[in-house]
C-alpha cells in the first residue's frame, strides 16, 4: 500500500541485491521496504542502519496491521452472519448480530481512513 509513496521518498533504499520477499499467511515481512545488502555469508540480508530504518520498518508494520484488520473484520462479519441466520426470529439476537456487523464495518472504515490519510500526507510531502 505504501510502496509507491516510499519508492518516491527514498529511491536510494531500493538499490541493492534482491531480498526474497517471503510472506507468511498473506502478511508481508517487516523488511518489506528495506534494501538488501550481501552479508558475510554472501547471502542477501536487509541492511539496517538505525535512525533511517524507523520509517520503512514502521510502515511495513502498519501494512501488516492493515491486513490483520481486514482479516479480523471479515471473520467478525462471518460470525455475525451465522448468528443472524441462527437467530430464528428472536428479535434481540437479530439486533445483536446487526450491531456486530455495523461495528465491524465501522472498524474497517477507521482503519482504511487512517491508512489513506498517511498515504495522502506522504504523497503531499513529495510535491
Amino acid at each position, binding site marked *: 500500500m505504501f510502496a509507491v509513496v516510499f519508492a518516491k521518498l527514498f529511491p536510494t533504499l531500493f538499490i541493492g541485491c534482491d531480498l526474497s520477499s517471503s510472506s507468511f499467511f498473506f502478511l508481508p515481512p517487516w523488511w518489506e521496504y528495506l534494501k538488501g545488502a550481501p552479508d558475510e555469508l554472501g547471502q542477501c540480508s536487509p541492511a539496517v542502519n538505525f535512525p533511517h530504518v524507523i520509517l520503512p520498518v514502521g510502515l511495513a508494520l502498519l501494512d501488516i*496491521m492493515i491486513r490483520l484488520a481486514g482479516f479480523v473484520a471479515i471473520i467478525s462479519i462471518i460470525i455475525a452472519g451465522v448468528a443472524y441466520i441462527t437467530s430464528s426470529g428472536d428479535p434481540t439476537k437479530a439486533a445483536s448480530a446487526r450491531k456486530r456487523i455495523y461495528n465491524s464495518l465501522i472498524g474497517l472504515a477507521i482503519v482504511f481512513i487512517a491508512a489513506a490519510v498517511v498515504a495522502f500526507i506522504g504523497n503531499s510531502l513529495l510535491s
Partner: protein
Amino acid sequence: MAQKLKKIIIVLCSGLLISGYLLPSVAFADAQAITPGAPGGPPAITGTDCNVANPTATTLNSCVKHNVIIQDLNVIVNILGAVVGVVVTGVIILGGIQYSMAGDSPDAVGKAKKRITNGLIALAAFFLTYAFLQWIIPGGVFS
C-alpha cells in the same frame, strides 16, 4: 500490574532510542565543533562572533543556525516526527481492529473509541511541541 509493566517498557524503549541516537551524535558534534569549516562539517562562520557587543539580526541568526545543540535538536525532532507518525497511525489501526472485534457490547466499543481518541491527543501534543520549539527559537530553525 499491567500498567506498571507498560510504563517500564515505554521508559526502556525511549531510553534505548535516545541513547542509541544521542551518544554517537554528541561525539560527532564535538569533532565538528573543534574544526568548523572542515569537509562534511558545518560551514565556517566568517565575521560572525557570537560574543560581539552589538549583534545584528543577521549575525544572531547565523549564530543560532550554527549552534551544535540546535542542529542536533533539528535531527532529533525529525526522527521523532517519523516515530510519532508511525505510532499514532498504528494506535488508530489498533483501535479500528478493536472496534471490529467489539461485537455488540457497548463497553468494548467505548474502549476502542477511547484508544483512538488517545492516539489523536498524542498527535496534537506532538504538533504543539513542534510549534513551541519553532516559536521559542529565533528565526525558526526547522526548515
